[in-house]
């Protein structure tokens, strides 16, 4: 059984259905990208895994069925979600944001060590550790969101459009750091992106979502190299 297995996932916002039976899987230590246009259901897929929307279907993580759990319990299993819009605690300091990321953990020495390692990945956060997080730039807030997720020592990271609204250079920087994180920590990642070209560079596998359904999936290189798919779905 795969590390993360999603079967027949449906999601609803009140009466409106947003996902119509999504299936995909993710292997331990791998990076999988979920691509698609606006409104295809990418964000909803992540929210459904974290039980933030009403869902039907099966989500199994590391042999455990997630359906029916609260969001907090899912997080407790080691799934860190870097949400759309970054979810910064704007009135709290950078350091407090990172501490919150480690909320479910107990060992203080480990937490302190991990915080230093986050500052290692993102030196700019280290320079601003006492600063109110709301005063950071967009790129720094994205770094903080990833750093906050790392503080969980996650087995799986869900990343919702880390490139959103950022300058190309910053996007480049963030993706390089993500690659380094995978290399060093071996963290599995489920990555949602509109910026398909950069996501496909990082990811091992990719799925293509259209109006709440998976229309295509496979190795990233296949999607990247297939001229037709690239033109009609990925737009670059």
């Amino acid at each position, binding site marked *: 059984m795969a590390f993360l297995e999603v079967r027949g996932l449906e999601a609803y916002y009140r009466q409106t259905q947003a996902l119509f039976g999504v299936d995909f899987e993710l292997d331990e230590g791998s990076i999988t990208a979920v691509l698609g246009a606006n409104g295809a259901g990418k964000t909803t897929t992540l929210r459904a895994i*974290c039980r*933030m929307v009403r869902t039907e279907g099966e989500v199994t993580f590391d042999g455990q069925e997630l359906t029916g759990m*609260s*969001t*907090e319990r899912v*997080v*407790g299993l080691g799934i*860190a*979600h870097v*949400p759309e819009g970054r*979810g*910064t*605690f*704007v*009135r*709290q300091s950078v350091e*407090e944001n990172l*501490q*919150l*990321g480690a*909320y*479910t953990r107990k060992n203080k020495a480990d937490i302190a060590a991990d915080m230093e390692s986050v500052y290692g990945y993102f030196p700019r956060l280290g320079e601003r550790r006492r600063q109110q997080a709301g005063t950071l730039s967009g790129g720094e807030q994205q770094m903080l969101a990833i750093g*906050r997720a790392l503080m*969980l020592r996650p087995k799986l990271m869900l990343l919702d459009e880390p490139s959103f609204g950022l300058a190309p250079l910053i996007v480049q920087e963030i993706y390089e750091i993500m690659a380094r994180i995978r290399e060093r920590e071996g963290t599995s990642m489920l990555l949602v992106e509109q910026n398909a070209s950069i996501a496909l560079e990082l990811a091992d596998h990719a799925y293509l979502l259209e109006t709440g359904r998976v229309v295509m999936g496979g190795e990233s290189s296949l999607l990247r190299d297939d001229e037709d798919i690239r033109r009609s779905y990925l737009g670059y």
Partner: protein
Amino acid sequence: MDLFLQLTLAGLAIGSIYSCVALAVVMIYQATDHFNFAQGEMAMFSTYVAWTLVGLGAPVWLAFLLAVGISFLAGVIIERVIVKPVENAPVLNQIIVFIGLLVIFNAVAGWIWEFTIKPFPSLFPEDLGFKSTLIGPHHLGVIALTLGVLALVFAFFRFTRVGLAMRAAAANPDSARLVGVSVGWMLALGWGLAASIGAVGGILVAPIVYLEPNMMAGVLLYGFAGALLGGVSSPGGAVLGGLVVGVLENWVGQYVPGGSELKLTFALILIVGVLVFKPAGLFGRVVVRRV
């Protein structure tokens, strides 16, 4: 000059009680965006609990600590049982639940303990080892104790893991859930803390105004006025606001004709005045209206 100093110091004492109530109000406001109109009656009820414990022979300090603890539990239970069902209901429904609570506490207190006024012992000794014509021992104790309590509360929020989680849950519930914070329980904890802080206010004010079921109406209004003056988005501001309001109340009572009779009206004027001229309060942020 002595009179002025006396008034000011007594005002600070009363004001620190208002600060407790204001802080309780602001805590729940920050977590839920709502004013708990029952805050005053809950504090009154806590005070009766303390009074009963004293009657049963408990030393007044023990009664105080027990009542504060019981209030904490009661606050948690009230949130989980009574407030939670309307968590996502329209504002009016929530206000009505608070009003319902207010009425229930008031009526049940009158039912159990009757509406006659009762003297309540001060937590502080008559003789502090020194004498001052400017401030009495109870007032001095009130200032010291509330400052201590407020410092504790701030330390809790500033330096503890749960305090940080509570702030996070209040500021950004979705994000808080995503780091594993149980937002519902943080709200309940907030209610518990607010009830405890309110209880401190009630027990401190009871020796001054005498214990009776309606004793908190005025205190709650001044607490609201203090919270608004300081800014409902700023706990520190609320505390300062409470102190300022307490001093103002005493000055107005002494120097403005009719002021001593119209204390509630003065609170009303303060509330409306702040809302109209400085809605964010002195230290608060302007809340941007969401479309």
